[in-house]
Structures are given as C-alpha cells and as structure tokens.
C-alpha cells in the first residue's frame, strides 16, 4: 500500500479530530520493514492545539491485504494494548483507533512510537546485550508475569474465545484445522500433533497469553526494554504456553546455547517469572509447549508460503518462509522421538 496525497490528507484529518486538535501536519510517513501480517507506518506529525499539541512520533498499524486466520483485527489488538497498559505492561501507548474504512481503505490504529530496535537476528549478536542479557531476561520475565495477571473474564476482551477442552488440545485442534486447509499433506506435523494430543497436560489456570512473546517482538533501546509488541495472537491459555514460545529453539535466532530467547539463561527467566508472578513454572510443561511452538510456527510459515503460492500476495520473503519448515520438522522429530 502506498499512501497518495488524498489518503494522507484524510489521515491528517482523522488524527486532528481524534486528538481534539485544531490541525495536524504530517511531516514524515514511511512504511516500516517487517510485519508480514500487517503494515506498520512510521509517522511524525505536528499537532496544533488540544491535549496532544506538539510533536507526535507514532506508528500507524493497518491490516495487510490477506491475513493469517488466527490473528486478531486491529480493533481487538487496540483493546489488548489498552488492557496491557492498564496492567502495567511496557507497551507502546495506544492512541486512536479508526474503524472507518474510508480513511485508509482499512482499519488502523495509531500508537506512540517507542525507541529502539527489535530485530531478533541482530539482537542475539549484539555484544552489549550479551553482557547485560541476564538483566534483560529478568525484565522480560517480569513483563510476562504482568501480562499473566490479566485473567478471564476481563473487561473489553470478550472477543477472546475460551480454549476448550483445554489450552493444549484447543491448540492441537486449531493447528489440525489449518493443516487441513493447505494444499499438501504434512505427515511430520501430523506426527508432532499426535504426540501433543497424547501428551497433553490437564487444564490449568487460564491467563492472558501474549501469543507471540519472543525475541524480535520486543523493543530494546540501549539495553533497556521499551515495549512489548505484536499482540495479534493473544488469547486465553496456560502460562507455560508463552514461556515455551519464548524459550523454543526456533526463536533463539541461532544462539541455541542461550535458551531464553537467544539472549540469556533459561533458569534466570524461570526464577524471575516465579518471583514476579508468585506462580510456579513446571519445566516439563514448558518443554511440552516448546514442541507446540515448533508446530505452531511451522503452520504459520506454511500459511505464509501459501499466500505466495496461491498468487494472493506474491512475495519472495513469504515464499522463502516455507523453506524454514523442514528445520522445524527436524526439531519436532527429535523432540518427539521413538517411543514417546
């Protein structure tokens, strides 16, 4: 999507109205890289009058042309950001939601831009972070504990379905549903899902799972955490779901020996989480959810590749995402070996 002059003016008008301002002049508007599922735009503007008068540094987040089935829409993500902010989670402040498609052609919201960078493959190689990795791991565990203080039912989050019959089996069923809609069969993923079905933990306490809590989805500026991003996969689940996703080998960006997100020690993360949440972490249950993480990422990667293959959205990046699947399958087969 490119924004023509008219769309830019409509966006200025929307912001001015939403901010209760006399006027809004956009000084910078460019598409940010990444965001395979939505589009993110970096926006600078001068706002005249009202409570937001002055310089605005923001991100505009819109839906992409085609979306992954499980992902929430922008209005839902906006509600989650507000709930998370109220619970004390470090997130970019959500400012205004626009549900009127006549402004940009689709829904979007504006949030304050936070400083720093999120790119996972760069972060795990960052020497400065290597020294302060443990502090960052503790901080992330505390943030996750804060996210998990949100439990059902929560005001404003009624759109999140309850995972029946349990978070684990609900996930298995959803992933099978997605596999059934792909053009080709995937026996290794079926193998992994059968293992997950046979080894599913019983239903525990439900918490708000972020759903994509991993290196690459939080912003760090000068070794300081500035924001937890990408809430579009949030839902109710077991606390071990997010922990497994964070620690899974597929999200260590090659820094496999640092099991907590490629940046630090797993036990540091567990300890800090337990201290902050006053809940206990069961390592065996985390391992289970790490297998789930590989399955889930494989299915998302296949869906992204399908968007390319189907011709809906031809893009080299998505085409190549399909080729990460064999690596995930190898990990799945090793984690669910013979006899287990």
């Amino acid at each position, binding site marked *: 999507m490119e924004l023509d002059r008219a769309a830019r003016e409509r966006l200025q008008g929307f912001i001015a109205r939403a901010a209760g301002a006399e006027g809004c002049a956009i000084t910078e508007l460019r598409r940010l890289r990444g965001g395979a599922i939505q589009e993110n735009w970096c926006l600078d503007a001068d706002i005249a009058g009202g409570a937001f008068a002055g310089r605005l540094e923001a991100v505009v987040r819109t839906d992409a042309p085609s979306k992954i089935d499980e992902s929430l829409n922008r209005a839902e993500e906006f509600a989650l950001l507000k709930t998370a902010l109220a619970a004390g989670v470090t997130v970019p402040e959500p400012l205004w939601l626009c549900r009127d498609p006549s402004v940009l052609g689709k829904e979007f919201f504006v949030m304050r831009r936070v400083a720093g960078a999120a790119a996972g493959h760069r972060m795990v190689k960052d020497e400065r972070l290597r020294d302060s990795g443990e502090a960052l791991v503790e901080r992330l565990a505390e943030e996750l504990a804060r996210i998990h203080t949100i439990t059902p039912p929560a005001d404003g989050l009624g759109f999140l379905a309850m995972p029946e019959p349990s978070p684990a089996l609900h996930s298995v069923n959803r992933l099978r549903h997605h596999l059934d809609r792909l053009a080709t069969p995937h026996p290794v993923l079926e193998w992994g899902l059968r293992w997950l079905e046979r080894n599913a933990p019983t239903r525990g306490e439900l918490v708000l799972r972020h759903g994509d809590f991993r290196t690459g989805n939080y912003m760090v500026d000068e070794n300081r955490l500035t924001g937890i991003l990408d809430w579009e996969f949030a839902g109710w689940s077991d606390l071990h779901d997010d922990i497994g996703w964070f620690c899974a080998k597929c999200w260590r960006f090659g820094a496999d020996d640092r099991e907590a997100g490629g940046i630090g020690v797993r036990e540091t993360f567990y300890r800090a989480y337990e201290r902050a949440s006053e809940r206990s972490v069961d390592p065996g249950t985390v391992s289970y959810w790490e297998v789930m993480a590989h399955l889930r990422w494989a299915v998302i990667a296949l869906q992204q590749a399908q968007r390319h293959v189907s011709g809906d959205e031809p893009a080299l990046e998505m085409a190549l995402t399909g080729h990460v699947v064999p690596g995930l*399958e190898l990990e799945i087969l090793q984690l669910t070996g013979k006899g287990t």
Partner: protein
Amino acid sequence: MRDHPTGEELLIIARTVLREELMPLLPDERRYDALMVANAMAIAARQIAFGDAPERRERQSLAGLLGEPVDGDGAMAGSAAVGDLTRRLSAEIRGGAFDPSTPRHGAAHSFLLDVTVQKLRESAPKTLEAAGMA
C-alpha cells in the same frame, strides 16, 4: 540433450555475480532482499542437482511403510501417486495408527526423519551441519 551451461550452472554463476558484484553496490536497507534472492537461487540449484531421485526413494519407502506394492525402481505398481500416499500416511498418523504401542511406530519415525533430512539438504543444508547430520 540440453547443452551446457545447464539451468543449475546458470543459477550458480548468476548467484555468484549477485553476491560478489552487485550486493556491494546496494544500500544497506536492500541487502536483505539481495540475500533472500541469493538464498532462493541456492535452493533452486540444489533441487535441480538432486533431481527426481529423492522423490522416487521417498515413494518406495512410503509404499513399503503403508504396505503398498512397488516395482524395482520405485515406480508404483498401482496408480497411487506419492501425494496420495502421503495424504494417507498423514491421516493414519492422526488416527493413531503409528502410536508408540504399534508395530510400525519406529519405521514411521525413521521414514519421516529421512524425508526431512532430504528436504533440509535442499532447503537449508546448514541446519543439518549444525545438527551434526550433514
């Protein structure tokens, strides 16, 4: 018979030009795109190099696992294509036919591992090296 350079050879030299001559000229923010192009070319070249042999072997092993007849070079005696057999295997795994308590559990795991290793040889050989399986 095709003359040289073959498609595979063209991909390899084109990729070398991309990486060694063109990439240094690109601004930093486009380097990632060039790396993706180079990666796509490498995958395509490896698939061409392996040819049809891996799929023939896969079909033969799969038929054996599912108890289907095959002839000597892996061609199906019946009409079932590898895609149909894979679909059947997938359904049977989901139904529990290869659970740990079943006789073909170990054979199924070995088959799946072999197929996955071959896919990695084409898609991401470095992953195999890292796993000590190259």
